[in-house]
């Protein structure tokens, strides 16, 4: 086991020699292009004769679509076409799991911003004018916006199938179990946006064979292709996708946004078509994190041991399904946290409403539950007079523990150790005892200088969380790679072909590191990710390093076997007498054959479709089953200063401890932990898409706030590497764990500072100063 401490790691000096195999801080292969402004993102694409696409969107959260009149738009010089649902040649609906969303609205629009029509024009400005000139007649309907009411059998239905997308039930142990110490609470999580910086964008080019070539920023090329081909009525081999540079994703690019629209326009106009969403349109163009209401009852013995947990969770999935079913599965199976609980009852609901559609965002169902169960653990600790870390450690799951689903946790689960590490980490210097000493920029309110220290109090909070890695509940989750090995002028070259999507997380670096280590060479070429090879699955669920590393390792092993066979033939000795070491084949009597010699006979190539171990669907009545592949764990400690008069929070320091199994690239791991922790900070303190009667009130970076460099504190990171024996190299998915527990840790710290219950995130100043009793107190007490 090793511990890496991010804060104290010196940045590598320029030109310093760094290793570039597994476990090294290899540099990003695209880093130089990115700092120079030469990396082509999906919004930077261009083609000769290209025209611009734009989208007509519904201003109403729910309305009957009466008519679409394109005539005025078509009279504008430079406008090529206006398309409606009648122009969709194939399947008129699409969706990640279920095709319930119209490619272009038909009959009824179900959320504000739903795509109704498309235009193509010779410039973005002409396209904007054409969008404004398309006359759409609506008959507004009363939207279904309250998820608690949408659940009721009497509610008006958003879709004919009813409003309940999934009801996940978990029952384990004794449903009537009682305990001497009981705490209950109601919690609410607001709608968070992924707020990636690179807007949705892409370029579709019609092809001579009647098909289309699409370059787009996405998380999963093949699932896009399936939906695009269906809508176009084309066989999949006529729809070719390639990954364009992705400006962040965080779940928001797992669903189709403009992919189908671009291809429809390209095939209609016969020209390359480019689309780029504005920031405002981006807020309407992708799914968000499910807002949730959660009610928990925890029962424990006087010694602090958990006896039972009962939970009811309602997740608002908005107008279309997206990945709501899987989100609910996570919230339900992970809903009591990384603790041993003998008696559990969970009911988790995912709903249709006329609010914005919600789907994948980093943490995917685990975030909402963790906010609630960690608040409950703090209340229980308070009730018992125990330290919050003590109570958590007492109940912490460990290797060999049983999940409430009945699944055995069969790899390291260092929950107590992670908590102990953040607990014992050095604390920041205390608040100055005397108000008014020099603290410029360091107090809540920052540079605005809103306090000299009066009314400012400090608090410390802890939280731990966990999440499944990979696709669960019986999904056939696989990744394809093709690796070829050939002699080059400067030595052997390995070429990797894969459809796995680099989003910024550093997959491309990991790919080069694995191949270098496995084949003992330095020259690794990564081809653009595209659909010429089989699916890589999604770059989501913290799964892509795990899956692609597993697939690459297998492909390299097969290549080595091929090389050994060649060596055996050449040396005339049996294969068992040969061994592989550092890019060479060692034979008897110190005979050595290098890669280059062995490749003289021609290149070698291996294509591998690699699967993680299978999972099971869960029982629909009890939630029992081996649903998950692997878990990732992180713990946070947050120290905050709160201005109790203005309701402002300054996060002073965050410590994170996370087990990653094996850090393939330690620097990138720490970067993921910093970034994930910061997104959790955003949810704790500022990030919320505000909805009023189904309408988004803040679709801009002026009104939807994400953390700036002034909002984030120094972040210390401790990384544990406890190998998972079932995973390639023992690694664990890294990306999501840090987003899960940072939110509850920060809120716990604010509670500790203010003494308020604070049952809703993001925290608002009115909650912190106690003006909004519901937000401050979390609804009916006990």
């Amino acid at each position, binding site marked *: 086991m090793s511990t890496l401490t991010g804060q104290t790691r010196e940045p590598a000096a320029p030109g*310093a020699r760094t290793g570039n195999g597994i476990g090294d801080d290899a540099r*990003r292969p695209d880093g130089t292009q990115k700092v120079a402004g030469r*990396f*082509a993102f999906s919004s930077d694409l261009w083609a000769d004769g290209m025209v611009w696409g734009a989208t007509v969107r519904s201003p109403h959260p729910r309305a009957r679509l009466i008519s679409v009149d394109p005539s005025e738009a078509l009279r504008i010089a430079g406008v090529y076409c206006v398309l409606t649902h009648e122009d969709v040649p194939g399947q008129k609906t699409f969706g990640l799991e279920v095709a319930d969303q119209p490619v272009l609205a038909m009959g009824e629009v179900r959320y504000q911003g739903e795509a109704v029509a498309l235009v193509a024009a010779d410039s973005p400005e002409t396209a904007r004018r054409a969008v404004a000139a398309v006359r759409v007649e609506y008959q507004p309907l009363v939207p279904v916006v309250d998820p608690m009411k949408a659940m009721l059998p009497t509610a008006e239905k958003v879709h004919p199938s009813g409003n309940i997308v999934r009801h996940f039930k978990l029952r384990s142990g004794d449903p009537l179990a009682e305990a001497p110490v009981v705490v209950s609470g109601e919690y609410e999580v607001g709608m968070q946006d992924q707020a990636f910086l690179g807007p949705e964008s892409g370029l579709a080019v019609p092809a001579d064979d009647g098909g289309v070539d699409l370059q787009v920023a996405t998380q999963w090329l093949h699932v896009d292709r399936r939906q695009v081909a269906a809508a176009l009525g084309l066989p999949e081999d006529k729809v070719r996708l390639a990954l364009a540079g992705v400006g962040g994703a965080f779940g928001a690019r797992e669903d189709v946004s403009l992919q189908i629209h671009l291809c429809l326009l390209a095939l209609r106009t016969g020209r390359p078509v480019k689309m780029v969403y504005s920031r405002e349109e981006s807020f309407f163009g992708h799914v968000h994190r499910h807002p949730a209401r959660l009610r928990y009852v925890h029962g424990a013995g006087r010694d602090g041991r958990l006896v039972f947990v009962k939970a009811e969770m309602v997740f608002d999935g908005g107008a279309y399904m997206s990945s709501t079913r899987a989100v609910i599965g996570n919230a339900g199976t992970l809903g009591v946290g990384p603790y041993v609980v003998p008696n559990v009852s969970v009911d988790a609901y995912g709903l249709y409403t006329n609010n914005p559609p919600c789907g994948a965002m980093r943490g995917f169902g685990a975030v909402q539950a963790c906010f609630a169960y960690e608040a409950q653990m703090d209340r229980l600790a308070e009730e018992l007079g125990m330290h919050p870390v003590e109570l958590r450690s007492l109940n912490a799951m460990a290797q060999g523990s049983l999940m409430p689903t009945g699944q055995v946790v069969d790899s390291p689960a260092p929950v107590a150790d992670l908590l102990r590490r953040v607990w014992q980490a050095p604390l920041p210097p205390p608040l100055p005892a005397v108000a008014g000493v020099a603290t410029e920029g360091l107090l809540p309110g920052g540079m605005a200088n809103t306090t000299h220290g009066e009314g400012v109090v400090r608090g410390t909070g802890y939280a731990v969380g966990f999440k499944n890695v990979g696709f669960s509940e019986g999904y056939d989750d696989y990744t394809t790679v093709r690796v070829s090995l050939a002699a080059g002028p400067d030595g052997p070259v390995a070429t990797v072909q894969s459809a796995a999507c680099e989003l910024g997380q550093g997959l491309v670096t990991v790919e080069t590191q694995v191949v270098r280590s496995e084949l003992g060479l330095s020259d690794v070429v990564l081809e653009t990710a595209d659909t010429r090879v089989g699916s890589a699955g999604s770059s989501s669920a913290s799964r892509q390093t795990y899956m692609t590393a597993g697939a690459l390792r297998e492909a390299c092993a097969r290549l080595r076997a091929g090389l050994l066979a060649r060596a055996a033939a050449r040396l005339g000795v049996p294969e068992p007498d040969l061994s592989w070491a550092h890019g060479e084949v060692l034979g008897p009597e110190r005979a050595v054959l290098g890669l280059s010699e062995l490749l003289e006979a021609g290149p070698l190539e291996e294509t591998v479709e690699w699967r993680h171990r299978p999972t099971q669907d869960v029982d629909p009545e009890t939630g029992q089953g081996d649903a998950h592949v692997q878990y990732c764990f992180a713990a946070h400690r947050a120290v905050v200063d709160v201005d109790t008069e203005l309701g402002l929070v300054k996060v002073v320091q965050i410590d994170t401890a996370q087990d990653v199994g094996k850090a393939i690239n330690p620097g990138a791991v720490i*970067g993921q932990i910093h970034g994930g922790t910061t997104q959790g900070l955003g949810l704790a303190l500022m990030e919320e898409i505000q909805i009023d009667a189904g309408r988004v009130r803040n679709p801009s970076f002026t009104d939807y706030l994400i953390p700036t460099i002034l909002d984030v504190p120094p972040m210390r990171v401790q990384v544990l590497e406890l190998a998972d024996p079932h995973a390639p190299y023992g690694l664990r998915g890294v990306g999501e764990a840090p987003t899960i527990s940072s939110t509850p840790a920060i809120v716990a710290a604010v509670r500790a500072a203010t003494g308020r219950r604070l049952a809703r995130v993001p925290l608002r100043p009115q909650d912190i100063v106690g003006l909004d009793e519901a937000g401050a107190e979390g609804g009916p007490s006990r």
Partner: protein
Amino acid sequence: MQIRLNVNGVPYETDDVWEGESLLYVLRERLGLWGSKNACEQGECGSCSVLLDGELVCSCLVAAGQAHGRQVVTVEGLGDDGRMSAVQEAFVAAGAVQCGFCTPGLVVATEDLLRHNPAPSDLEIREALAGNLCRCTGYEKVLDAVRAAAGMGR
């Protein structure tokens, strides 16, 4: 209208510019300089940061006409003879780049900071870069990069 401007030492002339166009649009769509990024186009994220006559601006908030006859430096104009500037090198070395969409803006803003203040404190770095949103890194390695660049005398 016709606009003449100098970008990264190269004179450009562009015709038929619409009055509503931003400098960012001219750089990207007319001059093919894609390095300046279009993340919010309302001056909140800093991804389109350039130097206009040596002053740090969001090019999305500058009307194309305002740039007429002026000198613009974009991320593509940093460094010498195809070599990275010390700031660019420090961002790569420190791991301050993930998706990289904010990176050109952060690099330009850091160049501007270090020109005015070669040895900034952490608080001064944070204040100077507060107009540049990054969604991936949590800024910790951005701070590392800026400290390293300052330590090298840029």
